[in-house]
């Protein structure tokens, strides 16, 4: 039953796919191959391996897990640092006065422009890529956490002051939960940004990963390959987002309940 309902939510997908197929076939543009061609190319690239390896090819096994691994590490790092720093900045006016310009500065810098710096600071490979991902996606979390922590309902803060809650109790039981809706908005944004940054981090000096494959396909004018990589990114994004929403629903159940109207 739940499965059927989940399927029902996907009704738009086949519609879009068919429309896409029809439109691209009509256009006959080499740059816009029809989905069937893309899928065939994807199959060839990633899913034509031996059965005992779930049909995954060497390319799939080499590139997808490494990329996704780096993505997760980068995202988790960004979440932790972003929430900690954001809450600190949100709660301490003094600190934010000192650091805020730096943050606004860092936020506006194109991640590719930071690559040389990271290349200088970190050894090439996973470390540098994770730093690139983290530094690129931390901003939505940082900003949302900062705003969330800054704008806690005054009455809630006063209540915790009055009952003498310690700083950490106040943080964990009052400030964080109340900033949670905003923090989750930031986390959700940064999750798909992480996919984008993953690709960017693999553009320079890398030897594997989904972004590397995208670049490789672009370099060899393998347009179905380019599209196939984009599709993989999109599907990954959808899956990650769905998992994220499940987690969010659990953590923010109070929020939905408290703000429900008929």
């Amino acid at each position, binding site marked *: 039953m739940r499965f059927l309902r989940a399927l029902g939510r996907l009704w738009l997908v086949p519609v879009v796919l068919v429309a896409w197929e029809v439109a691209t076939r009509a256009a006959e543009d080499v740059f816009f191959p029809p989905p069937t061609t893309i899928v065939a190319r994807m199959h060839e690239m990633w899913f034509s391996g031996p059965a005992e390896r779930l049909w995954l090819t060497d390319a799939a096994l080499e590139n997808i897990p490494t990329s996704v691994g780096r993505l997760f590490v980068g995202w988790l790092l960004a979440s932790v640092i972003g929430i900690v720093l954001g809450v600190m900045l949100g709660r301490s006016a003094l600190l934010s006065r000192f650091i805020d310009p730096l943050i606004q500065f860092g936020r506006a810098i194109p991640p590719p422009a930071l690559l040389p710096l990271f290349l200088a600071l970190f050894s090439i490979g996973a470390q540098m890529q994770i730093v690139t991902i983290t530094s690129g996606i931390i901003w939505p979390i940082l900003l949302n956490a900062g705003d969330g922590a800054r704008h806690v309902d005054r*009455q809630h803060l*006063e*209540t915790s*002051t009055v009952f003498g809650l*310690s700083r950490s*109790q106040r943080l964990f039981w009052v400030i964080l939960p*109340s900033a949670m809706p905003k923090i989750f908005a930031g986390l959700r944004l940064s999750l798909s940004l992480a996919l984008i940054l993953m690709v960017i981090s693999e553009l320079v000096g890398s030897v594997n990963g989904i972004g590397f494959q995208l670049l490789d396909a672009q370099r060899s004018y393998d347009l179905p390959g380019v599209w196939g990589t984009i599709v993989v990114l999109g599907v990954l994004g959808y899956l990650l987002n769905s998992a994220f929403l499940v987690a969010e629903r659990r953590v923010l159940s109070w*929020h939905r*309940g*408290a703000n429900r109207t008929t």
Partner: protein
Amino acid sequence: MLEISNLTHVYGSGPGAHHALGGVDLKVAQGELVCIVGPSGCGKSTLLRSIAGLLHPTGGTVTLGGKPVERTPDDLAVVFQDYSRSLFPWMSVGDNVALPLRRKGMDRPRRREAATEALEQVGLAGAEGKYPWQLSGGMQQRVSIARALAYRPALMLMDEPFGSVDAQTREDLEDLTLRVRSHHDMTILLITHDIDESVYVGDRVVVLSKAPATVVGDLRVDLPGPRDQITTRENPEFVHLRAEVGRLVRGMRDDPGAAS
């Protein structure tokens, strides 16, 4: 225990400034229950927030146990007038009540037990698992009372704590407050609009004038204890005091000149 002298507070500045407190003087002894009455908007909540250290008054001093109040004093509990916004919607009712008890160094089962007991006392047995937004207004108010009572503070500040419950529950809560107070030697400041209530539960009734608020009456309630909803209210002294307080409150309203 608590000494307030010449407390003044002005909200805002310039032409739009509002003089809420116009020099309040008040002394409360250890273990006393003082009721504060006064017209709506006169500055009662402002006074209470100054005592709780939530607001820096623009003038005068508040000292608690000899020390000036600059930040929120230890061992204090407040029942806010806006009770619904003072409960945390992300916690169950039980957790809301148990949260402050962490400060008391209680372990988890003891906190739970204390919360359950306090909720039972205010007539909310079995509501621990619900969330505040699943409760009616009066129930939320009782949760915030339970939270303050379970905390067993040395000083308790209550801002119209029984305003949203039915008459019978209100009487029960009044008696509960009196009981808890005498058991645990609390000092209580209670703001109320119900003149009967102020005389019934208070050792003293302090009447504030309209803004800028000053103390215009400070009546000692000499009723025999333990008090009882029926006999106490029939006591001629009760009837006399209540009329007296009523007259003071009304007087303040009709003759603003008396306030300054």
